[in-house]
């Protein structure tokens, strides 16, 4: 009896083993027959101080990838679908680096994107470079990200030196247009990589164009109280206040500035927290007259822009921002490169990215005409728009004002802004 039982057990387990083997073999062949999958690892801040922009980046990526996949995926790869893997960077460089290592080694991703925070992108792209995995940077503006001679890093957004250059050019144009003289600047910026990078640019330009910097104030983005900073702004009494803020501090600064009646001829912000759709919702009238610098605005006159924005707004309940448009376009840059490479070999893929000249398709909702990378992987054509926040018909609106060619028809910017 005992012996028979053992034999029974053994035969059952052998049978089961064979069954599992055949199943694995069978499903294996099935999977091979189906379309390939292109794995894209995305390292973005999904919690912590930059979470709201991170979530917007995730949403817009989802929408673009869904469009690409629904349109038949990557045809040269047999209709391969894009598969997104998201990792939360918590805006922390060390978390970003570990995430990149894990995505490359464990998830075997073919392409990486991210990381919004320049401080995270900088070391993370280095990991990708070491492994030779193409890294697409939709938005992280620190100059040096594409100044290290890396072969696998490609940035769609403009560099931050271009941003500061355009802010000052804008200011000079405004002075001329309205015949108002600006002498002094107050520089108030978050003390991270991004803010300090901007400040360095402003200081250089201020010297060049003869503006006097009367306040140079880096502040921690996670400060619980910004009233001390605002008091200094009030005391400095500069003609123009230049700001770089993340999401939460942009709200707190703007509201506190109104409370303390800080006056200036103009307040010029640098996107980021000021471009976050939640900013206007939270500050409302307090944000009136602020100039903000972005790469894109909903009133941009490009075909498809309005429709794409409406689709996005319907899905997620808020408008696209310059940064989301960069992320959106980046997905099409990826699809375009994959299509031309016809291979998932990282080297071929890299060469395809380097040869990008994307000037048609849904990505062309961007404010300029084509996406091309220079030898360091920087998008040569990335353009910048300056908008003014105004209350129009009882609603807060962002109106393109500069360059003059992009100015919304019939709108005259308010400069200097009225006293509070």
């Amino acid at each position, binding site marked *: 009896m005992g012996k028979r039982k053992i034999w029974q057990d053994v035969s059952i387990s052998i049978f089961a083993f064979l069954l599992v083997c055949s199943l694995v073999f069978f499903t294996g062949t099935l999977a091979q027959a189906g379309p390939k999958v292109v794995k894209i690892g995305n390292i973005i801040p999904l*919690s912590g101080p930059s*979470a709201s922009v991170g*979530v917007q980046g995730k949403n817009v990526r989802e929408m673009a990838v869904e469009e690409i996949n629904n349109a038949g995926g990557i045809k040269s790869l047999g209709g391969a679908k894009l598969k997104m893997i998201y990792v939360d960077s918590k805006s922390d460089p060390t978390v970003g680096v570990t995430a990149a290592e894990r995505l490359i080694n464990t998830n075997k991703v073919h392409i990486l994107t991210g990381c919004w925070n320049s401080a995270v992108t900088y070391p993370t792209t280095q990991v990708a470079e070491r492994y030779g995995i193409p890294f697409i940077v939709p938005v992280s503006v620190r100059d040096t990200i594409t100044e290290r001679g890396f072969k696998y890093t490609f940035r769609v957004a403009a560099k931050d030196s271009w941003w500061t250059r355009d802010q000052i050019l804008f200011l000079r144009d405004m002075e001329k247009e309205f015949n108002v003289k600006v002498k002094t600047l107050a520089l108030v910026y978050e003390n991270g990589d991004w803010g300090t990078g901007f400040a360095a640019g402003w200081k250089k330009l201020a010297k060049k164009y003869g503006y006097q910097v009367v306040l140079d104030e*880096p*502040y921690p983005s*996670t400060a619980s109280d910004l009233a*001390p900073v605002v008091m200094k702004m009030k005391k400095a009494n500069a003609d123009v206040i230049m700001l770089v803020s993340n999401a939460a501090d942009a709200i707190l600064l703007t509201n506190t500035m109104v409370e303390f009646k800080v006056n200036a001829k103009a307040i010029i912000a640098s996107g980021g927290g000021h471009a976050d759709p939640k900013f206007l919702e*939270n500050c409302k009238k*307090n944000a009136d007259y602020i100039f903000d610098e972005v790469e894109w605005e909903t009133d941009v006159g490009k075909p498809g822009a309005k429709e794409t924005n409406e689709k996005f707004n319907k899905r997620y309940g808020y408008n696209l921002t310059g940064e989301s448009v960069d992320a959106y376009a980046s997905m099409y840059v990826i699809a375009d490169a994959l299509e031309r490479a016809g291979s998932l070999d990282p080297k071929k893929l890299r060469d395809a990215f380097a040869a990008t000249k994307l000037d048609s398709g849904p990505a062309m909702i961007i404010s300029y005409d084509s996406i091309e990378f220079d030898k360091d992987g920087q998008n040569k054509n990335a353009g910048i728009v300056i908008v003014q926040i105004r209350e129009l018909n009882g609603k807060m609106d962002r109106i393109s004002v500069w360059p003059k060619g992009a100015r919304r028809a019939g709108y005259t910017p308010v400069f200097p802004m009225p006293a509070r």
Partner: protein
Amino acid sequence: MDLILQATVNGILMGSIYGLTALGLTLIFGVIKVINFAHGSLLMVGMYTAYWLILLTGINPYLALIIVVPLLFFFGYYMQEIVIKPVFKAERDVREPITVIIVTTGVWYVLDNLSLILFGAEYRVVKTGLSGKTFLLGELIVSAPKFYGFVATIVTAVLLYLFLKKTRMGKAIIATSFDRDAASLMGINQYRIYNIAFGIGTATAGVAGCVLIPFYYVFPTVGVIFDIRCFIIVVLGGLGSIHGAVLGGIIIGVIESVFAQFMASTWTEGIIYAIFILILFIKPSGLFGARQDW
């Protein structure tokens, strides 16, 4: 000169609110002898409760206290009862229940991520009648919500003090904080006392939530911003000391506000920590800490 005055006034007001956020932490530590790492999250819960209540009903933020405070009390009471007590019982024989600290860290992560799932990562601001209101005293600008926050802090601290000193329950709490075994022998149910202390601590986080909402924003990890400050304040003022927490908060607030007028505000953070370390060197029990044997 008036700038310094302005900065000092702002520092005192904001600092008192820091003190308010730290009250619960100091109370819970004083009684249970456990550092509650979830304190910032409880503050976040308080802020969200106040936020939704004000947004949905349009109630005055200080009237909202009537609802938020009991709600948060029961939240804290049952959190201690259901989540922390079992661990406590398992660690009954240990003088400093380390596992409980780890549990509070777990609670912190669970609460923060729950709110991230429920409410999303975005920053939320609710406009109340008070938002952006200021009093003008000559050249001096005083933010109305911060001023009311100052008043609320003083009232909360005084009430808490009277409760602990004058009521039977308060005395039982203090007895337990002195020696939980002896208190148990005297017929005090220490676990019930813990529940109540945790409840009161959470309720003060609710007060802080209502006070902050008119001028601050709320998001799932907002607690972290105040958390570290709370720890510093509590150590500075003396662990377990109520007036110590309020004064500690004011000291931190004034340093932050006034020092920022002479240097980049990035520095003030560093200075606060330097002072913190200095206090630990010179007077480890804090400015107003009782000489306890722990």
